[in-house]
């Protein structure tokens, strides 16, 4: 289902965007863990990243080898242009819906 963005996918995309240059597996995981106070499994995270890559919303490159990871390099992710458009579309859709639903959704009764 190309173009469809799941809730978790959107979350991951936004996280990667907000992590700027430092978006790799562990940093994304800890960021989400801390903000959403839920523990996501590394397998699920990477699966989602893989799906996003396949949809063309993410691009990636291998970094330099690092000491603290047993000499292994990190793979850094970046949101692509299509990814950004998809996020914007999602946001627009939500905004529209919020405007339309604002009356009902008002917390002050």
């Amino acid at each position: 289902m190309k173009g469809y963005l799941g809730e978790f996918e959107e979350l991951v995309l936004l996280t990667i965007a907000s992590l700027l240059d430092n978006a790799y597996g562990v940093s994304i995981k800890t960021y989400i863990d801390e903000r959403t106070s839920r523990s996501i499994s590394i397998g699920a995270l990477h699966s989602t990243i893989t799906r996003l890559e396949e949809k063309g919303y993410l691009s990636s490159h291998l970094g330099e080898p690092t000491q603290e990871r047993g000499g292994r390099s990190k793979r850094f992710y970046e949101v692509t242009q299509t990814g950004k458009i998809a996020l914007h579309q999602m946001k627009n859709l939500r905004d529209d819906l919020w405007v339309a639903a604002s009356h009902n959704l008002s917390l002050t009764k």
Partner: protein
Amino acid sequence: MKPEIKPPRLADGLFLWFCERASVEDLHGDVEELFYSDLEKYSVVRAKLKYWQRIFSLIFSYALRQRKRRAAYHPYSSTLSFVMLPNYFKTSVRNLAKNKFYAGLNIFGLALGMSLSLLFIAITVFIYRYDNFHTKRDRIYRVITQVHDDVNNPIYASTPSDLGFILEDEFSGIEKVVSIRASLNGEAAYEEKKMPINGYFTEPEFFEVFDFPLAKGNSATALKDPNSILITEKEAEKIFGSKDPIGEVLTIPPFGELTVTGVLKDVPKNSHLTFGALASYSTLQSSAKNNQLPNDASWTSFLNSYVYFLLPEGSSSDAVDRFLKHVADDRYPKDGFQASFSIQPLNDIVPGIEVYNAIGPSWDHLSILLVGLTTLVILIPACSNYVNLSISQSLKRTKEIGVRKVMGGQRRQIFFQFIMETTLSMLIALFFSYFFFELIRGEFHKMLAEADSMDMTPDLVILVCFVLFALLVGVLAGIVPALYFSKIKPINALKSTVTIPTRKFRLPGRKIMLTVQYAMSLGFIMAVVIMLQQYRYSMNYDFGFRQENILDVALQDVKPQLFRNEFGKLATVQSISMSSNILGLDYSAEKFVKDDRRQDSVAVATISIDENFIGNFGLQLIAGENFGADQASNARHIIINEEMVKSFDLDDSFSAIGKTLLLNDNKEVSIIGVVKNFHYTSLRKPIGSFFFTSDPNEFQYANLSMPLTNRFDDLTKIENTWKALGSNHKVKAQYFEDEIGDAYSFYFVVIKLWGFLGLLAITVASIGLLGTVAFTIGNRLKEVSIRKVMGASTERVVFMLSRDFLMLLLIATVVTVPVIYFLFSTLLVQMQYYSISVGFAEIGISVFLLAVLGLTTIFSQTFRAANANPVDHMRSD
């Protein structure tokens, strides 16, 4: 951070093993980084547990699965690159060209093995295209009858003759019903000519249901009136030549004069309805009215009547089923004869279930399956030989595979390459196989009567099936070598340390295969030899009457007395007798005989003869006397055989004379003579009760006793005399010896068939053995050379090389001989009551034949190796 604590090594190992070639550096790094951060927060055990957990979560993740898949399809190692195809092709061709001997053997063996399968494919394709020319075939059904006799509940393709009319009149949900009576058999006379004709009586609806086009005439009206007939173009050509047949009158007794109202296009060979002529059904009814023919409208007679019907489009056959059930319940009262009707779609007739009274050629699934299995018996050994030979051959090619792999060839590519090679050889084999197929096809047509009605001329569909079959066999036969070679590790291949797989497990497998093949070959040889012996035995059997110098002439329409007068004048004819049947052959009539002391009458075989018969055939009268010249008294008397004396409890032969019996429940006869037992019927059946009657009306044959001087002259004389009798028929005369020969010619068919299968099996087995021996020896040339240099004698070396294979032949013999012996000992008795048991001579001959073949194959190779100059092979490296 404590650097000395490392992530669990087992988990790492598992992870890396699982990931194979996929690039997982980043993932692995991530888990390790998480592990170290965990170490700061949790205990070591907990951190390690979490590490395991993460490894597993990755192993089962989509991410890893995708990475692995991508690794396999990496652009630099895509599985099937078409660029490589010409290369594979070239390598295959070069490889075949390089090993001409083995390639030739292989392809020849495969071609032989496949030829039989091709025949089978042609047959199957033909059978499955039966009746496919009827445009309404999906809506055409036939009514079949199952008789419930509590014994074998036979199913008949035919029905009582009135069922069709009942279906037509009392049931409304059917578009068309057509009744067929397949009794239009006889001789059609036109002017001077007489032609045997076979056909059906049927209704005009026939043409609305089936697609049998007319060449001339109107299909709507052609069969309307009584006494109209349609004939096929082929028959028309035979009877009328180039004359227009329409309007001509054919006389077919007993149906009378029939006017030709049209000409049918010839019936396609794949039609289950086969006829040379169609006459109007009303002919039957009108001749039945005139009492010319018995109207067998009985509900217990299923002879010759068939009902087909056409359902309207989109309607179900259930209603018909219910109606037929109702009819059956109605006609067959509870405590009487029980039968039920059911319907059979046209598409299920051929191939379909086995039925009695089939209207045309029938093929059931079981016999197709059996033929298929027979072809497999030949095909599988041929393929397994191919696999063996190609594996052993390709061992020389491990370097090539090594290089391919080093250059980036993937396992799948190597696999594909070998499959392609096999398929290529298979296609070449198919080419040769086609010639064999053409050869067998001709033989097959000659051999089996059924084959006559088959059209196996290869057309596009059959050829496509052939190619598909070759490709399928190619892939199947190619899998084993391809799997084996694609598995070879490049390092071993390049260092030439690929072990010959034969050492471990393949050699026993190969030996078993060869042993089975030789056992099978021996089986076929033995079967043929035993059958030949059986044939000879039957031909020379003493039937208990004179077999030599008897010429049987069919009387046809000539009166016996006239015949006797005219032929009696011939000098060469010593004596003439008359009979209703020919002795010693399968068909003798039966009559019911009742003895006044018993309740039931018994069916007893009988032949009607004249007073000269017993003397003519040299039968021995034990008691009583022969028939006399007085026909009125002959009609009241019978002569019985010894067996009948016993089975009717008539004490002994002498006291049997004068006893009376009831014939066919209405005619009282007395016994005037007892003859010694003789074989009145074929050797397949035991001698049972038998009696002679004497009724000139039943005479069908004249038996001329004439010393054999010059067959040709004699026959010419007979023919001339026959012509003088003024008969409309041609003379039909045959020597008794020839007729006996004909009667047992089925042995010949069996011998030919098995002989052919045997020949195939032996050839395939020999090719396999030759290839294996040659290969094994080829691998041991150096060893042989060294042995010879060290002083081993040629005989010693030959023995050493041949030992394994001799053992194999021995095992095949030891296993097969008893199996075949017991099989035939039981089979022969069932086939023929008076049969010769399997003797040592037959076993000896068969084993000898096999030994000659096997030993020639083995020694031809081993002697060559043993006699080679050791220097030639020692020098090679």
